[in-house]
């Protein structure tokens, strides 16, 4: 039983156990209030989070647990302040080494049989964030057994640290949260009462995230996988569909997961930070990274870019720092030249954009053209195309394969799309709709589903609001939740196939 968010076991077992258990605890405890409830709820969440991770395999679980123990001890040692700098350096190096070993062991042929522990890229960064924050004095770790010094965003008991690392709604694919973001909410857990409205809004967000993944991303994946499998034979339009299709697929898959995690978390009154804010509406690469995987950008800014000097050591050093960050981001995402090229592409454009904005002449021109809608539109389109092209290196098995697809996509347009590509992105429901509407005999009926799914995905990607914002602002009414229920049921019965989140391998 692997309780991915888009699985029967999560929806019918984990989620009910989580929500019922979390709200039932105060009743079970009885008249106890305040700290006892908080403490029991905390340990309940730790237990369910550890059980969640353990379902994916004991080997990964023991590696995860060992990492928690080692980093916890390091955190305690750093808090003592003696030799804190050295201990922090050792801790960071250990975590990076640990991550690098699992990510690159197979690629560099140290051993082809070493599988990467699930979510290692995410929880390792959480550990690094924690250790550095302890070193900087932003967190003070309480020694086990010491008298508690009261609730504060800065004080981490062992259970706080444990829950911060293991909290399962963000464990597998982020967001990469900061300790203080969670601590204040952990401290208030004792007073959290069941709030029907908050619960419904969480359920709303979870359902929409599930739909993004199960109904849209997984459907587009069929066409993308097919396109890559027959690459030498794809037409121009096929290549364009594959390129933009993957761009949408990746966004829906990743942001869908984050929406589900945020929705689940909201059901028990804990808010996770936003991780995606309509990134494809960005008017430039810098803005793209302010909207895409926001917590990763935040991590790299705080723990890499700024320590390297940020923009405080002159232009040349700033550009170098930017490039270093993106190359390391590429390496973090995966082992292989494709990820390095992807990182380089983003770094290069970021440097170029930064250089242009540093120029005084450009700053003046920018101020004058900043609000021109046509210029914004052009910038958005160009950014979207560039990012989509870069994603091909993310998806392809090799640099050569990525270049092969891009060569076709940027060649002479030819408006012919392979029917096999279109039929690889099919929803049976659409077949029934076409049958009812007597459109199934139309010679282009085989293309309808793919274009429909791409169109809906594009609308979501370029909409004025994110699903997260809609979940917070929509009016609670019976009609809305009637449709959400239909969508929920539709998603649940669509779980029957096999699917994995794209960022799982990270």
């Amino acid at each position, binding site marked *: 039983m692997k309780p991915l968010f888009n699985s029967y076991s999560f929806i019918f077992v984990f989620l009910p156990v989580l929500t019922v258990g979390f709200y039932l605890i105060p009743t079970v405890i009885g008249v106890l209030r305040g700290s006892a409830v908080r403490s029991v709820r905390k340990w309940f969440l730790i237990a369910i989070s550890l059980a969640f991770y353990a379902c994916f395999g004991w080997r990964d679980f023991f590696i995860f647990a060992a990492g928690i123990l080692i980093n916890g001890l390091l955190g305690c040692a750093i808090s003592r302040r003696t030799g804190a700098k050295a201990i922090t350096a050792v801790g960071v190096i250990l975590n990076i080494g640990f991550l690098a070993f699992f990510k690159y062991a197979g690629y560099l042929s140290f051993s082809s049989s070493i599988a990467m522990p699930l979510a290692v890229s995410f929880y390792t960064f959480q550990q690094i964030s924690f250790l550095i924050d302890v070193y900087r004095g932003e967190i003070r770790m309480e020694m086990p057994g010491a008298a508690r010094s009261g609730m504060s965003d800065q004080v981490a008991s062992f259970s706080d640290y444990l829950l911060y690392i293991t909290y399962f709604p963000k464990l597998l694919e982020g967001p990469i949260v900061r300790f203080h*973001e969670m601590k204040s909410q952990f401290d208030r857990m004792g007073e959290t009462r069941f709030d029907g409205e908050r619960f419904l809004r969480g359920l709303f967000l979870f359902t929409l995230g599930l739909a993004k993944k199960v109904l849209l991303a997984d459907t587009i994946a069929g066409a993308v996988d097919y396109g890559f499998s027959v690459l030498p034979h794809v037409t121009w339009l096929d290549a364009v569909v594959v390129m933009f299709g993957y761009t949408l697929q990746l966004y829906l898959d990743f942001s869908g997961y984050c929406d589900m995690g945020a929705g689940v978390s909201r059901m028990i009154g804990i808010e996770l930070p936003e991780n995606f804010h309509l990134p494809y509406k960005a008017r430039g690469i810098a803005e793209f990274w302010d909207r895409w995987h926001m917590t990763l950008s935040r991590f790299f800014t705080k723990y890499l870019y700024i320590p390297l000097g940020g923009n405080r050591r002159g232009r040349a050093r700033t550009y170098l720092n930017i490039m270093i960050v993106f190359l390391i981001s590429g390496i973090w995402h995966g082992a292989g030249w494709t990820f390095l090229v992807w990182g380089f592409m983003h770094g290069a454009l970021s440097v170029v954009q930064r250089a242009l904005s540093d120029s005084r002449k450009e700053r003046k021109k920018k101020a004058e053209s900043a609000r021109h809608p046509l210029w914004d539109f052009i910038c958005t389109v160009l950014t979207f195309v560039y990012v989509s092209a870069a994603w091909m290196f993310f998806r392809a098995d090799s640099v050569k394969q990525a270049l092969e697809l891009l060569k076709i996509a940027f060649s002479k347009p030819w408006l012919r799309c392979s029917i096999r590509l279109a039929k690889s992105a099919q929803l049976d429901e659409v077949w029934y709709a076409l049958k009812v509407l007597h459109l199934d005999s139309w010679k282009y009926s085989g293309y309808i589903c793919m274009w429909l799914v791409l169109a809906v995905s594009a609308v979501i990607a370029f909409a004025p609001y994110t699903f997260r914002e809609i979940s917070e602002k929509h009016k609670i009414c*019976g009609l809305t939740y*009637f449709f959400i*229920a239909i969508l929920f049921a539709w998603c649940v019965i669509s779980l029957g*196939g096999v699917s994995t989140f794209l960022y799982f391998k990270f």
Partner: protein
Amino acid sequence: MSKDQTIDKSGHPAEDIRSSQAAGASSDREASSAQVCKAAAVFAGTAAALLILCAVLTVIVDPFFHYHAPLKGFPYVVDNQLSQNPGMARNMTYDSIITGSSMTVNFNTNDFREAMGVNALKLSSNGAYPKDIANVLDFAYDEHSRARKASPLTNAFIAIDVAVFTAGPEEVKYPQPTYLYDKSPLNDIPYLLNKDVLLQYVLRPIVEREATDLATVYATTWQTEEYFGKDWVLQGFVPSEVREKEEPKDAYREKTEINLERNILSYVRQHPETEFTFFFPPYSILYWYNVERENHLEATMAQYEQIGETLLKEDNVRVFYFQDMEDVVTDLANYSDYEHYSPAINSYMAACFGSGEHEVHPGGMHEVLDHMRSIVDSFDFETFLAPQ
């Protein structure tokens, strides 16, 4: 990074997620308790009704035959070996089974009825490993099943592909829907709430009304004439890499013995009421071309002899060897690729099961394998494979 994020004096980014919570908590979206209760009730009621409806339809029709025998008159679509074989084995009416790899998919059970008077059910399992065959036998021999309560299993016709007998004894070819393999209803949710089951196997048959003919179930009926022939076969044929070092003669003995004992012979011995008919399918001559290039001809021959003679020691076993039909295996008009033959060959084999032609008796494997060896040794592969 295009800019440094504003960092407050405690080191936290200026943006705080609590501000988004505050922004969300405007009076515009605060709902009354009544609205919330109504919305929750609508959600729960609608979702439950839809999911229960889906489950009930699936149970009533039961397209994978997991709970009951097929409904009379319902045009069932049967095309999913992994999901439907267990249910068919447990809930259909038959006295014989045909199982094994894709070498069995083109059998027509009417040929078996004609040749031997048996009511056979085809439970093919493409790419089957020995454990896959064992799984099918487990389903077929389930004494609590409707099928076995109705009649004993009198015959089992099983294709033997020697190459897979070096697989791990617990290894299966494909991941299996284990919720259909056990009898626990607690894990049936993936079957009951499954869009593919509902749309492809419950509703679509109702719309299209094209029931699968179980006599030819799983057959490659899409393969029309142009999918057979030398030109077609050779265009898709990939010769193996030449291996310099010859495989030792007993290279496959140990693993083969383990698979035979655990996954085949245990059933043969436990069920003396069943006559087991094992056959070695007639791969084309190109199969032997690759065996020679891979330099394990003697090891392969030894494996055939080991399997054949071991099986023939049992009283309720018959063994057929079809690979030395020289006219057939050297004529690629009979093949769609280097190993898959036309349905006409399947029909012939079914007739042979009845007539006894090509049957091997104890001690007879050596002779048929010598004949096969002579066919391979004397065949002019170079001319045969030269471009026309």
